[in-house]
């Protein structure tokens, strides 16, 4: 993992001192709320429905065990004993007091964390593949580049007041687990014919009320040129993005209006002028950062373990967990374990302080003290020896963290919705709970197979409903909560936009609707065909008929 040096520490410490001063001035009345609001937002502090909400960044979803323990401590001391992991690999605390937030930020800084640029019209936390550096299907580890981007984007002199927020995602694997095509900038690591590492660059992806899949503007950008190319893309956006209407201010609207070819042309023209300026880092700096992400020294182990197999043969839930919640590691004898934060009937993405501490302890014991957070709101223990899986599962299961549903219908993305969020129009969490209760049968959901439900409580789409195989969008229909259903979205390498099937349902109707959709799939699927494949083959019509009749 990256470790701060004196420069990084100084940066965060200065920021925290500044924020402490601003909070004091606000509490004394020297700053008005209008003046203070943009300042607190730049430090991730929102005012939500019930209280303030602090969003701390988990850069590229990587946490150490010590950092996780600190999050647990913050949850317990300053909040109500829990935190919420988000689709942007951040963590949110729902109940902090304004007067406590400077202390919370200092507590975070002690473990090299911050809340800088987790809000505002700036470059947000860079997200990536939760299995980065630990997966068999990877060209290169994306995290060093994500760290470079983190540093470069922090307090950028020119790009801190963009037309709108700006999100960058990067992946190094052929399977896209970071939804890169749905980001303002998506970067995919690749090798050219000469064996050099670089990026395919796409721009203009985004969700919200106008879902757009990003377009590739450069097939291969040499890795050494990453930052100057980003500067060129951002300058074109900062100068030309719309500022008259916040719903048309994202880069996706500009790219659509200009055309991706013209956006590429302007970017390349600007890049030509600046690529020799000292924007990109020296080679020694790239090497310094990469060294922090060197693969852990793992001794090759047996691929299988007799006692683990034996336990799996006797315990159906453990066998299911092995099947669904572990992913192949690049070193034989190891796996990456996904800890589901979607217990059936529970709140997606929430973890209690005790659960966080257990995960930290397991990370110390079994995963090189490393933890990852996925955009699908789960936690990951990377580099875990196969031989230890039975012990780990037993510990997780006892703490309510053993659900074997990763990648299945109950492993839903669910935004906080109207239970917490000031922007929401409808609740999301209770719908998620009702669906997972309805499908609370491991045999049944494994028979249904891979199926991603993604749910948002408003058009802003924090719950990625456009990218769900089944998407659910909560809307306000004349003062009542109503839920629309979308089918056919994907956030993976085959990215696609879901299509709204028809009129919305009430909170009970939507659960029945999901069940009917699943029934159509089960009736129509061909041997070995997953939900998305069936939908793409047969189209929306059979699903519409099942939900709305033939008219």
């Amino acid at each position, binding site marked *: 993992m990256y470790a701060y040096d004196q420069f990084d520490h100084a940066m965060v410490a200065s920021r925290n001192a500044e924020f402490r001063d601003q909070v004091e001035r606000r509490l004394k009345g020297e700053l008005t709320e209008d003046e203070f609001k943009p300042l607190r937002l730049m430090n991730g502090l929102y005012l939500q429905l019930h209280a303030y909400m602090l969003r701390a960044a988990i850069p590229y979803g990587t946490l150490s065990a010590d950092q996780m323990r600190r999050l647990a401590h913050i949850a317990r001391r300053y909040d109500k004993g829990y935190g919420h992991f988000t689709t942007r690999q951040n963590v949110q605390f729902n109940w902090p007091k304004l007067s406590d937030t400077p202390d919370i930020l200092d507590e975070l800084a002690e473990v090299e964390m911050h809340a800088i640029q987790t809000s505002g019209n700036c470059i947000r936390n860079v997200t990536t593949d939760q299995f980065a550096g630990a997966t068999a299907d990877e060209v290169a580890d994306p995290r060093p580049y994500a760290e470079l981007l983190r540093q470069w984007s922090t307090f950028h002199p020119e790009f801190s007041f963009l037309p709108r927020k700006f999100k960058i995602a990067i992946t190094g694997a052929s399977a896209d687990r970071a939804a890169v095509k749905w980001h303002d900038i998506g970067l995919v690591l690749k090798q050219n014919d000469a064996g050099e590492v670089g990026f395919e660059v796409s721009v203009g992806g985004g969700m919200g009320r106008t879902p757009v899949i990003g377009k590739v503007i450069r097939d291969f950008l040499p890795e050494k040129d990453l930052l100057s190319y980003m500067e060129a893309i951002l300058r074109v956006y900062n100068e030309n993005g719309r500022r008259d209407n916040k719903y048309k201010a994202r880069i996706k609207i500009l790219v659509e209006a200009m055309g991706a070819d013209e956006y590429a042309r302007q970017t390349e023209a600007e890049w030509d002028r600046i690529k020799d300026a000292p924007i990109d880092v020296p080679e020694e700096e790239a090497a310094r950062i990469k060294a922090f992400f060197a693969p852990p020294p793992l001794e090759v182990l047996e691929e299988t373990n007799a006692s683990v197999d034996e336990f799996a043969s006797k315990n159906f839930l453990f066998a299911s967990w092995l099947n669904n919640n572990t992913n192949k590691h690049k070193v034989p004898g190891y796996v990456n374990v996904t800890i589901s934060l979607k217990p059936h009937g529970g709140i997606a993405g929430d973890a209690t302080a005790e659960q966080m501490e257990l995960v930290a302890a397991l990370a110390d014991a079994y995963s090189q003290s490393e933890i990852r957070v996925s955009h699908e709101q789960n936690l990951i223990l990377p580099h875990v020896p196969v031989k230890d899986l039975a012990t780990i599962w037993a510990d997780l299961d006892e703490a309510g963290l053993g659900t074997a549903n990763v990648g299945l219908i109950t492993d839903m993305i669910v935004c906080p919705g109207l*239970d917490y969020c000031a922007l929401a129009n409808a609740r999301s969490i209770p719908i998620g709970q009702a669906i997972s209760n309805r499908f609370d049968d491991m045999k049944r959901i494994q028979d249904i197979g891979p199926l991603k439900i993604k749910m948002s409580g408003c058009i802003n789409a924090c719950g990625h409903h456009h990218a769900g195989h089944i998407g659910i969008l909560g809307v306000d229909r004349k003062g009542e909560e109503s839920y629309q259903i979308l089918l056919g979205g994907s956030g993976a390498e085959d990215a696609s936009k879901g299509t709204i099937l028809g009129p919305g349902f009430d909170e009970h109707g939507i659960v029945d609707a999901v069940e009917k959709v699943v029934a159509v799939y089960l009736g129509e699927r061909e041997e070995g065909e997953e939900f998305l494949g069936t939908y793409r083959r047969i189209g929306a019509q059979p699903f519409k008929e099942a939900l709305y009749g033939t008219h």
Partner: protein
Amino acid sequence: MAKKIKGPQMLIANRLDDGRVVFFTRTGGWSSNTDDAAYGEDEVLESLLERAQVFVANNTVIDLQAIGAVIDGDKAFPSHIKHAMQAKGPSVRADLGYQTSLDWEQA
């Protein structure tokens, strides 16, 4: 406050210090309990707003809004689902609703 609301209204705000949702009360203070909330329309509402503004000016509360209210007996409750949620706390964590967390409030 841009939208014209018909009928009785009550005043909602967040406390500056802890962000907690509070309602302007009949005795001219703030309470998280809607049972204490003042309500009214027209001139009565105007006068409530005027008194409540003082607390915005002296940095006790922020985000002051007049919101639609349903009156039951002599008690007001927010009519819109969003503000009802603010009055009750998250529907999914009954253990954290305002009425059940007075200890936290006083901490």
